[in-house]
């Protein structure tokens, strides 16, 4: 009888341990917004070119 109780307890513990842990995947992919930084970098790189373009085209600006 006592042995049965121990088994029952062990069983219960094992059952409890088997409850699956659910990892819920996000329904949307993680967005990393690098747009602004990239553009800023490009704009800095093009600064001299932009200045020349303005000076070379007084009829457009």
């Amino acid at each position, binding site marked *: 009888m006592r042995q049965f109780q121990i088994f029952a307890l062990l069983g219960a513990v094992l059952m409890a341990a088997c409850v699956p842990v659910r990892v819920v995947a996000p329904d949307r992919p993680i967005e990393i917004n690098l747009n*602004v930084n990239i*553009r*800023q970098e*490009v*704009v*800095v*790189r*093009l*600064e001299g*070119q*932009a*200045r*020349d*373009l*303005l000076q*070379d*085209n*007084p*009829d*457009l*600006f």
Partner: protein
Amino acid sequence: MVRKLSLGFAALALAAGLAAAAPAFAQADSVVEAARAAGTVGEQTDGYLGIVAGASASADVRARVDQINIRRRAAYTERAAASGASANEMAAAVACQIFTSRIDVGERYRNEAGQWVQRTASAPVQVPSFCSR
């Protein structure tokens, strides 16, 4: 002989002066400039001119703005190709220059949020966020 030489130099100097002055003849479209001053036409953060929302621009002004934008696009594309950037990136870089130094008080411009704003003497121009500070 000396006189002839000096005359030749004078002619050369005159020619050089004319050549240097030549780009000044290619002036901005006066009709568009007037519309800009009147707040009918303004600069946008995308590097192109736009017709101010709610303003009544004549068909002539609209056509001239279109024409300038087409030529701006060509200039952006050409210059961008030379530096390995896209036309839009070049346009953005030019917009930064325009917004930091070329919008006068009284003129209207379209900010990054798409709203038309008139530049006043008290408030600085809202420079796009992608411009370096």
